[in-house]
C-alpha cells in the first residue's frame, strides 16, 4: 500500500519514504514501489556548522547512553541547579541569557517560565513540543535521536524552575526512531535516579511521559497539542487564556520546542554570560538551520546568530547544486521566499524582521533556476489544505480555495485576477484565523506574489520553469 505522506523530516536525504516504521532516504525514483521497500535505509544526517554547542553529540551515528552522557558533562546543569540555585535563580539565569523560543514564535523563554512559576496552583506541567512537522525541518529529530538525554535534562530544569512535577514529551508519529531512543533514555534516567522522586537528594520530583502523535501537523500548535494529550481531536484553543495560566488539563503549563529545551542545560552549566558570547546582542546563542533542496551538502548546520545566509549556503552547505539560485523557502511551508538579493541578510531576529523574512524553525530550502515555483507553491497549498483542522472558517475554506487557485496556476490555466484572489484569501487567513496554521498558510504565496507577480499572470503557461 502506497500513500503520499507529509514531510517525514528526512529532507536532507530527499526523496524520502517510510516503510512501516523504517525510514528510507534517497529512494530510487522510477522503479516500482516493491523495490523501494527493500532499499536505501536512511543514513545518519550530515551535521556541521561553525559552532557545535547544541549539536556537539550529534551526527556521529551513535546515541550516547546515560553513562556516556554523564561522563561528557551531562546532567551537570541539573545537579548545579538543584544543589546551588533556587528555582527563581534558574529563571533569572535564563532571562539573563536572552534565550527565545526556537519553535517559530520567538517568545522569551525566561519570561514564559516565570509566568508559569508565578501562576497559582500546585499542579503544573512541562510539555516538550516534539511534533516537528514543518516541511523542511529535521533539527529536532536529529537532537532527539542523537542526544535524547539533553532533551530530558532541559525538561527537568524546566520542571525544577516552574515547580512542575510532570512532563509530557509529545513526539510526532512519523519519528519512530526518535521515540525508541527517547523511551530508552527515559528508562535509563529512571534507573539512574535522574527521573522519579527526590532527585539528587532534594525534594524535587519529576516524571516524564512519552506521547506519540498520530499524524496531524496542527498538533504542533501548542493548544492543539494539549488537546491531543488530553485524548481529543487536535483543535487549537482560543487564546487567552495562555498556557502559562491554563494549559494542559487546565493547569499552568510551559510548552517549549526541543531545540529551546536543549539550550537550557548549556545556559545553566556555562552561565548566561558565557552563552551570550556567541550571537548578537538581541539574538544570543546559536541556531540550527536545516538545509535541503538544491544544495551540495544538505544537512543540519549550527551557527551563531549573525552569520549571513551566504555563509551558511555557500561555505557550509557547498552552494547551490544543479544551477544558479532561484529562490530559498525560508522558515518552511509557513515561511516566505527569499532570493539572491537576500543572501547578505544576517541571520538574527532583528535583521530578518527588517527583511520581512520569518526565521521560523530554521528551514532553508533551496530551489535552483530549473525548478518550477508554481508547482512548489501548489505543493505547499496542498499541504495546508490537507492539514487544516477545520475548526475556524478562514482557514478551513481559505486553504482549499488557495489550493484550487494554485492548482490551475501550476497547470498553466491561470485566470485574470487570480493574483488578486490569492491575496484576498491569503490576507483573510492571515488576519482572521484562529491559530498559527491559518495565519501562516498563505505567507509563502503572498511573498511569491510580491517577488514574482508574473508567475500568476493569466498567460503564464508559456513558461515551464521560472527563470530569474
Amino acid at each position, binding site marked *: *500500500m502506497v*500513500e503520499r505522506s507529509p514531510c517525514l523530516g528526512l529532507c536532507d536525504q530527499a526523496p524520502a519514504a517510510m516503510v512501516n516504521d523504517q525510514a528510507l532516504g534517497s529512494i530510487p*525514483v*522510477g522503479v516500482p514501489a516493491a523495490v523501494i521497500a527493500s532499499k536505501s535505509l536512511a543514513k545518519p544526517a550530515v551535521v556541521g556548522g561553525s559552532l557545535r554547542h547544541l549539536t556537539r553529540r550529534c551526527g556521529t551515528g551513535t546515541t550516547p547512553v546515560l553513562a556516556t552522557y554523564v561522563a561528557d558533562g551531562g546532567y551537570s546543569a541539573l545537579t548545579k541547579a538543584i544543589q546551588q540555585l533556587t528555582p527563581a535563580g534558574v529563571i533569572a539565569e535564563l532571562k539573563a541569557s536572552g534565550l527565545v523560543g526556537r519553535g517559530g514564535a520567538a517568545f522569551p523563554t525566561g519570561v514564559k517560565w516565570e509566568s508559569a512559576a508565578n501562576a497559582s496552583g500546585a499542579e503544573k506541567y512541562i510539555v516538550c513540543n516534539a511534533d516537528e512537522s514543518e*516541511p523542511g525541518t529535521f533539527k529536532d529529530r536529529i537532537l532527539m535521536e542523537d542526544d535524547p538525554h539533553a532533551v530530558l535534562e532541559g525538561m527537568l530544569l524546566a520542571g525544577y524552575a516552574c515547580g512542575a512535577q510532570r512532563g509530557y514529551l509529545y513526539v510526532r508519529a512519523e519519528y519512530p526512531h526518535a521515540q525508541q531512543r527517547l523511551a530508552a533514555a527515559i528508562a535509563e534516567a529512571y534507573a539512574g535516579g535522574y527521573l522519579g522522586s527526590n532527585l539528587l537528594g532534594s525534594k524535587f520530583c519529576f516524571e516524564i511521559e512519552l506521547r506519540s502523535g*498520530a499524524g*496531524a501537523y496542527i498538533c504542533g500548535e501548542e493548544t492543539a497539542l494539549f488537546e491531543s*494529550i488530553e485524548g481529543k481531536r487536535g483543535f487549537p484553543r482560543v487564546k487567552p487564556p495562555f498556557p502559562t495560566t491554563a494549559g494542559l488539563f487546565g493547569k499552568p503549563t510551559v510548552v517549549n520546542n526541543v531545540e529551546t529545551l536543549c539550550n537550557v542545560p548549556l545556559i545553566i552549566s556555562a552561565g548566561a554570560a558565557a552563552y551570550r558570547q556567541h550571537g548578537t546582542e538581541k539574538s544570543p546563542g546559536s541556531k540550527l538551520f536545516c538545509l535541503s533542496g538544491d544544495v551540495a551538502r544538505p544537512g543540519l548546520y549550527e551557527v551563531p546568530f549573525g552569520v549571513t545566509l551566504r555563509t551558511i549556503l555557500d561555505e557550509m552547505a557547498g552552494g547551490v547544486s544543479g544551477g544558479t539560485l532561484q529562490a530559498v523557502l525560508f522558515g518552511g511551508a509557513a515561511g516566505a521566499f527569499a532570493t539572491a538579493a537576500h543572501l547578505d541578510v544576517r541571520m538574527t531576529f532583528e535583521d530578518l524582521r527588517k527583511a520581512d523574512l520569518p526565521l521560523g524553525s530554521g528551514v532553508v530550502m533551496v530551489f535552483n533556476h530549473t525548478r518550477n515555483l508554481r508547482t512548489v507553491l501548489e505543493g505547499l497549498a496542498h499541504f495546508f489544505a490537507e492539514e487544516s483542522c477545520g475548526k475556524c472558517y478562514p482557514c478551513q475554506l481559505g486553504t482549499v480555495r488557495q489550493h484550487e487557485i494554485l492548482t490551475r496556476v501550476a497547470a498553466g490555466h491561470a485566470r485574470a485576477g487570480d493574483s488578486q484572489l490569492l491575496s484576498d484569501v491569503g490576507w483573510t487567513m492571515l488576519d482572521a484565523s484562529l491559530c498559527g496554521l491559518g495565519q501562516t498558510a498563505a505567507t509563502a504565496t503572498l511573498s511569491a506574489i510580491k517577488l514574482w507577480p508574473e508567475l500568476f499572470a493569466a498567460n503564464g503557461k508559456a513558461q515551464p520553469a521560472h527563470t530569474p
Partner: protein
Amino acid sequence: MPPTASNSLIHSTEAAQPHINNPGHSGLLPALLKAQKQNGYISKPVAAEIARALQVPLADVYGVIEFYALLYSKPTAVRVIRICGDPACSIAGSHTALKLCVPAWVLALTKPLPMAGLWWSARHAWVCVTRHQRRW
C-alpha cells in the same frame, strides 16, 4: 483472523511505561496507537472495548480515529509505504516515484507466499484491493 478485543490492550499500553497511569480520556490516543500496532487498524470491537475500558463515549473514539491521518478504522496492508510529497522530496523526484507506484494489490501479490500463509496472503490481497478502491 478477527482481532481479539480485551482489556489486555490497554493494560499492555501501560506496561510499556510502568510509571504511567492514564485513566479516562487522556489514555485514548496511546490506547488506539497500541491497538493499531497489534492489529494494523482499529476494528469496531476493539474501538468499543477501548471506549468501555477508558469510559469514553464511542463517538469520541471514532472522532479521534477520523481526525488523525495515521489512525485507520479499516484494514491496511501489512506493508505501508509512505512517500514524502513535500517540496524538498518532490523536487528530488518523489512525485515521479508516487506516480509510478504500482497499485497496492499488485504489491500484495509480490510478497513471498509460503504455503502455510497462503490463506492469509489471499485475505491480505483482498484487504488491499478494498483499501485501494477506497483510497483512489
